[in-house]
């Protein structure tokens, strides 16, 4: 990320400060990043009865807002913000990169990464993912990264995936998350992590009773492209598996290097989804197969429907799915135009157009949006990973290839952990993570009401509290022992008020 001269000067000054201060509890890189971030001078709180449009947009595009980001979107407008997020390459993300890109394993090659212990690789991948989710200004892009991470799910628990997933994140998911689906699919098919996770590396020409390994071929059709009702047959799975025989990973000298071994490839003619792939193409079978798969009519519909559910709600209008699929097809399977179509739709823009618009946040989104709302300074460290493990949603840990479920049912069991996380976060109990609630509240001092707890809720929820919520918040202030301790009847306990806002049903949804 190129820095301009002014930033470099600021950076130098901040680095000096960091070194001089001995970087006691805030690590130097966080200090540097904070200097580079544009800090809001003052913040205007949402005062409407409904979630204001800017807040709704930031919830939908990414993980909510940090203080000041609502004001930015209000100033520039919904359309401009969407266009800016779609053209994510132009968004300066240097402060985020200072925090997130400092880990050695994140940039390691497939071979070099084995120099690091598994625990280190896993921790740094988690930190990188969490820090990008919290601090990136490319929030839509990060949402797409998470979407494809689920779509092309890989579990760190299998074989060498703990090492290769870092490479997959860098070389497969991130470069193509808003790029071309064909490039993404091809990169994924030849990703060392995927070759391990779905056994492609062991897939070779049938010999005797042993047929090719169908694992990847099946998920390619069922989960990655056509969808389970996409109209393929068991025969198509077997033929696709034959096309992919011979692709493997070098296990010795060039550990992690993907190679095609002609001697293990089935060179015969194949017939996939009604189309013939002639004999003798060798490693070119792969491209022919993926081309057939992408161009199958079920694929754009399946991908578009999944993406519509992500952005619009659990029951997106069929007409929107068709339009999104058409943008996808018409652009030769570019992802960005499809996303733009969805984001431009009434169903996305107007809460009244899709009654099922409020979705339950999965734990990762909950944790990241809570950290953002409280403007936490975090290293994305182990304690956050423990919380997500407890909530059942640690990144890259879902065992089966369908990826973490997106429907609400499985996640309702995580509420108690969400509440306790909110308490621990707001009361500064998380090692490696710091919040300065007084500092955040100072940002809206010009706009503050007589009810500081209500102001916190408004900032967190994107609207003023409903009467029920205000009543609940008053219960906190009415705590008798607390008022006895401090001699005030309407004492404001900022950590508890912020925690209750984060623990409230409204914050569990987006």
């Amino acid at each position, binding site marked *: 990320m190129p820095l301009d001269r002014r930033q470099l000067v600021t950076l130098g000054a901040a680095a000096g400060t960091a070194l001089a201060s001995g970087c006691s509890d805030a690590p130097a890189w966080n200090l540097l990043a904070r200097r580079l971030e544009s800090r809001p001078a003052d913040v205007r709180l949402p005062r409407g009865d409904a979630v204001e449009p800017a807040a709704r947009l930031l919830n939908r595009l990414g993980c909510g807002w940090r203080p000041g980001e609502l004001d930015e979107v209000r100033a520039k407008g919904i359309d401009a913000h969407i266009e800016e997020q779609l053209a994510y390459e132009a968004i300066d993300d240097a402060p985020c990169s200072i925090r997130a890109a400092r880990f050695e394993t994140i940039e390691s090659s497939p071979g070099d990464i084995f120099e690091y212990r598994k625990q280190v690789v896993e921790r740094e991948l988690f930190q990188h993912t969490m820090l990008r989710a919290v601090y990136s200004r490319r929030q839509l892009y990060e949402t797409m990264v998470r979407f494809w991470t689920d779509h092309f799910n890989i579990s760190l628990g299998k074989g060498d995936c703990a090492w290769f997933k870092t490479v997959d994140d860098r070389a497969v998911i991130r470069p193509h998350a808003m790029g071309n689906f064909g490039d993404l699919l091809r990169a994924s098919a030849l990703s060392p992590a995927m070759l391990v996770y779905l056994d492609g590396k062991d897939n070779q020409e049938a010999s005797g009773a042993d047929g090719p390994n169908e694992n990847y071929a099946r998920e390619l059709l069922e989960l990655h492209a056509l969808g389970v009702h996409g109209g393929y047959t068991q025969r198509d799975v077997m033929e696709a598996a034959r096309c992919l025989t011979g692709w493997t990973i070098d296990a010795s000298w060039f550990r992690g290097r993907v190679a095609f071994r002609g001697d293990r490839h089935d060179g015969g003619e194949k017939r996939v989804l009604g189309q013939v792939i002639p004999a003798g193409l060798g490693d070119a079978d792969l491209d022919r197969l993926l081309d057939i798969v992408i161009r199958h009519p079920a694929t754009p519909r399946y991908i578009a429907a999944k993406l519509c559910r992500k952005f619009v709600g659990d029951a997106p209008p069929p007409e929107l799915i068709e339009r999104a699929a058409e943008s996808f097809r018409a652009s030769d399977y570019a992802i960005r135009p499809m996303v733009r179509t969805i984001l431009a739709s009434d169903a996305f823009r107007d809460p009244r157009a899709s009654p099922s618009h409020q979705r339950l946040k999965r734990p990762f989104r909950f944790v990241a949006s809570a950290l953002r709302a409280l403007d936490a300074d975090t290293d994305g460290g182990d304690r956050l990973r423990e919380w997500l493990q407890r909530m059942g949603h640690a990144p890259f840990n879902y065992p089966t290839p369908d990826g973490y479920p997106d429907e609400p049912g499985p996640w309702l*069991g*995580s*509420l*108690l952990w969400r509440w306790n996380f909110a*308490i621990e976060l707001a009361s500064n109990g998380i090692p490696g993570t710091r919040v300065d609630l007084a500092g955040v509240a100072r940002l809206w001092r010009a706009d503050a009401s007589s009810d500081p707890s209500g102001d916190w809720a408004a900032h967190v929820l994107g609207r003023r509290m*409903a009467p029920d919520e205000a009543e609940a918040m008053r219960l*906190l202030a*009415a705590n008798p022992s607390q008022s006895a301790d401090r001699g005030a009847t309407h004492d404001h306990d900022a950590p508890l008020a912020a925690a209750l806002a984060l*623990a409230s049903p409204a914050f569990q949804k987006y």
Partner: protein
Amino acid sequence: MGMTRRRALRLWMAGSERPEPRGVLVNLFLRGGADGLNLVPPHAEDAYYSARPSLAIARPDGRSDDRSKTAIDLDGFFGLHPALRPLKPLYDGGQLAIVHAVGSDDRTRSHFEAQDLMERGGAAGRNPGSGWLARHLRTRAESGTPLAAVAIGETIPESLRGAPGASAVRRVDAFSIQLPPDRRATFDRALHRLYEAEGGQLGAAGLQVLESVAAMNRLDASEGESHSGAAYPEGELGDALRQVARLIRARVGLEIACVELGGWDTHFVQATLFGSLAGALAQGLAAFAADLASDWNRTTIAAMTEFGRRVRENVSLGTDHGRAGVMFVLGGGVRGGRVIADWPGVAADRLEGPGDVRVTTDYRDVLGEIVAVRLGNERVAEVFPGHTVRPIGIV
């Protein structure tokens, strides 16, 4: 979806008169490959004694003066290791059934492979990506409460892999709002107000969690840690079972609990370690049964291990990795007082591979029957894909 505020409120108010609590399955994994031949020795078989001149458990024939060294006869053929004596009353009362020569078809004799396979509920070469208990939780008829599946320990075991609602906790105290008592009460009330007003699926789930937490607190206040007479042994297993008993007695909707006891990999001087492990196992289970009192009737315990051990003892007075092992199934609904085995024998010509007991009962038949009968899951074929469960009449 679509729960009205009124219904959510009723659910909350009805806290103390909830419907009949569900069946609970406690899955106890004995990690390391527990030696079935010394836990439940085939004392009527001479070959057992010739293969294990030093380690065999003496016959219960009264010739030895020391009752602490002889097997406790069960059915004239099998006996119990003397340290398992606390289990004898449960056996005699028909609440403990033992399955012998049981296991999987995994022949790697690798702890990792064999445990992984059993916890996923698979067979060699066909190992599902998710755990068998996770699949049960996904396929059972009704949806569960937020505390439906709990593992006592640091991490979620493989058997619960893919069950997003499952929690791993060291102590069940973790199931509370983590604030000092006075502020906790206030925060509880505020949350209750919020989730009551919310309604719907989310509101109901929130109220249910608050009710579960309150039930745990009430139990602590009124009954203390455990029922009198429940003497849990010190150590990992006793602690874990005590935690599980608290959850069951609190009636917070627990359906699946996972606990484990390691240390069974007895390659070296087996006799020194084995007795105390077996003792902890038996005392823990007996204390658990006593602690549960009336809740024992809806509880089933399935204790299993990844494989048994070699019939012949080795030169360092230990035993090596073998094949078939033993399972213990306990509970109020168990048809116990029996050792169920299609016994293959331990004579040299009856063994497989390097000298191991053949597996004659598939472990999935035992677990599958429990899932179908005691947990009432009709979709047991999806819990153990590719396997047709043949009930052996254990529950």
